[in-house]
């Protein structure tokens, strides 16, 4: 008969305990908590709605000044510039009159001025290189001066400059 464990005097005593059964774990569902994300998204949305102001884009009309101290032009022949005068006739945005020097027919609006300048450049003695000088009095609204400049740029005039009456 084999010696049983723990029955001898010199053998160690081993107490066998059956493993305790763990209490069954509760099944936890893995869910995505959307609340913080929705918080942040709403915060961003409110920020953009509150700070956005829709405004019209602004752009630039390039202008170039004559180089100071540069050598005289190599063009020997004198070039007669097209001189455009804008006169303020009232405080409103359309209260102005246009006068192109030495021409009988005169444009009345800046849209007409653009077509007029295109037409003038086709006449003998004028071309794309003919300078256009916008000469106005100091009390004319800047809006009209820019309108005139824009008309000259629209007519593809290469040399447009400002003058003072």
């Amino acid at each position, binding site marked *: 008969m084999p010696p049983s464990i723990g029955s001898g005097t010199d053998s160690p005593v081993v107490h066998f305990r059956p493993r305790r059964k763990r209490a069954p774990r509760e099944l936890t569902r893995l869910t995505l908590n959307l609340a913080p994300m929705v918080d942040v998204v709403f915060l961003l949305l409110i920020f953009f709605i509150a700070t*956005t102001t829709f405004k019209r884009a602004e752009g630039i009309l390039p202008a*170039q000044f004559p180089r100071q101290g540069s050598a005289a032009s190599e063009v020997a022949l004198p070039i007669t510039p097209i001189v455009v005068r804008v006169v303020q006739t009232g405080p409103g945005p359309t209260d102005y009159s246009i006068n192109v020097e030495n021409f009988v027919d005169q444009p009345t609006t800046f849209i007409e001025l653009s077509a007029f300048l295109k037409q003038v450049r086709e006449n003998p003695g004028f071309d794309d290189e003919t300078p256009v000088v916008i000469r106005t009095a100091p009390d004319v609204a800047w809006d009209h001066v820019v309108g005139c400049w824009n008309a000259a740029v629209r007519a593809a005039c290469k040399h447009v400059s400002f003058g003072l009456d």
Partner: protein
Amino acid sequence: MASNTKYHPRQSLTFNMAPMIDVVFLLIIFFVLVSTFASAERIPLELPDPDHSQALNTKLTDRVIINVRLIDPDAPETSPVAYSIGPTRPEPLAEIAERLMLHKRAVPRLKVVVRADRRVRYGDVREVMQIVAENGIEMMNIVAHVGDAGGE
């Protein structure tokens, strides 16, 4: 005895957030795409708005923005004007000319952008042009609203 009432399984009432999140994300993406944060250099002004504007929405490098605005916008006929470089406080033209000279020394190919209120007098802007020309700056750009066709 069999009952006539049918058995309805209990349905949980849930809030379907998916469409709402779709719409909210759509709005956010829209705002993120269309928003261009206003530059502090571009102070609010009533800019010129010419017919068939040829103004181009281009980004210039090495440029200085000079703002010309009315001090009293409610009385444009009589209001004096204020000049400032970018977002700084208004300065006399002599100081602006001095700063422009320093800028020009640092950046020889300096460009000047003149943002003037449409109601200021030409004579007031002309003074800016003069100091720009005196500093040997050849490129000056005038700010206006871009046309409906984006510069046509």
